[in-house]
């Protein structure tokens, strides 16, 4: 079954203690960061440490994502070349645009061939954090079959747009909509920007709920303490699950009776409602919230 990406936890790439603990903090994905969390003088050190951590530590229960440096810096190509050879699940490409994704795709083709890895097995998540990246996000995703998701980088994006970042996040409303829509259209995950105040749990819950309501499928985080709240927001509630299961039940009965249209509690059940219910039930199943016989636990 496909793994969930409700939460993606950033971990600094040059900190051995944090790399050791990363797998057991509860996040669906961990992002071992070689970019912003590492100073310019320690890029070489972090690259080697992350490579050896991936070779040594048991990360089998999480998705291992490595954020490399931008490809137009001296560090980015070296990061891709060294890290891809130890086969992380996914590379997170900063300041992504179409050209950059195509470049990484070509580099990965070569490395996978040289190392004897299955072609296309290393995936890509595009970090959309520039105006050009956002404006062309659909093409960025289409630039490689490896792209399995988009992470929206709110801080850099608002900086590029020349606007202030606020707790309410109205300034990234359009970006969230655009990313969520493009990702849904191309059936990849859309991950929201982190909520940077790690002591404001209420703000985190609201911000996560807002992202979910706009169609984003997960949220990145910068502190392990944020993960539980993110998961609770992205999990379907018991009421949502029960309703979804009833929708599917009514639909099956209608199909048996040869009815094209059916209703539940006086409301018409049509294709979009069935699709949403199917998605909710699938997510419930992934999270183990549904018993084998199909009832909500």
């Amino acid at each position: 079954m496909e793994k969930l990406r409700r939460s993606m936890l950033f971990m600094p790439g040059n900190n051995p203690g944090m790399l050791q603990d990363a797998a057991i903090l509860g996040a669906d994905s961990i992002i071992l960061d070689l970019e912003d969390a590492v100073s310019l003088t320690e890029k070489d050190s972090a690259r080697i440490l992350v490579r050896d951590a991936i070779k040594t530590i048991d990360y089998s229960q999480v998705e291992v994502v490595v954020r490399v440096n931008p490809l137009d810096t001296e560090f980015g190509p070296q990061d891709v070349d060294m890290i891809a050879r130890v086969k992380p699940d996914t590379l997170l490409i900063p300041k992504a645009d179409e050209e950059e994704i195509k470049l990484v795709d070509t580099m990965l083709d070569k490395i996978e061939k040289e190392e004897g890895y299955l072609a296309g097995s290393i995936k890509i998540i595009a970090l959309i954090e520039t105006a050009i990246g956002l404006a062309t996000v659909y093409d960025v995703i289409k630039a490689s079959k490896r792209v399995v998701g988009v992470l929206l980088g709110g801080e850099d994006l608002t900086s590029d747009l020349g606007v202030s970042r606020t707790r309410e996040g109205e300034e990234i409303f359009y970006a969230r909509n655009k990313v969520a829509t493009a990702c849904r259209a191309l059936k990849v995950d859309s991950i929201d920007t982190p909520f940077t105040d790690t002591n404001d749990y209420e703000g985190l819950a609201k911000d996560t709920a807002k992202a979910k309501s706009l169609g984003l499928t997960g949220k990145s985080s910068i502190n392990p303490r944020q993960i539980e709240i993110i998961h609770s927001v992205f999990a379907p509630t018991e009421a949502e699950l029960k309703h979804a299961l009833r929708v599917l039940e009514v639909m099956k009965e209608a199909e048996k009776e040869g009815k094209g249209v059916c209703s539940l509690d006086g409301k018409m059940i049509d294709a979009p409602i069935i699709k949403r219910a199917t998605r909710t039930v699938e997510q419930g199943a992934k999270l183990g919230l549904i018993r084998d016989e199909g009832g909500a636990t």
Partner: protein
Amino acid sequence: MKITKVAKAGTLESNDILIMVMPNESGKVELELESIVLQQFGDVIEQVILHKVKEMGVEGITIKAQDKGALDYTIGARVETAIKRAF
């Protein structure tokens, strides 16, 4: 292969190790190790450091290591970084 200058890598934070390497004229590998777990793991830490130096084919090197409870992968990574910085 010989290193040409003094270089260091790592930190003195817990779970890490600070490695300083410098060229020497003896042609040998010399190691000075301090560790918070010297009694229990001193031999293993030494082995990991010397194995990495050998793997990289370096001779005529003095290594000063201050360990704060680093795992093997960290020790190897820091030694490799310090040596690469010292060429």
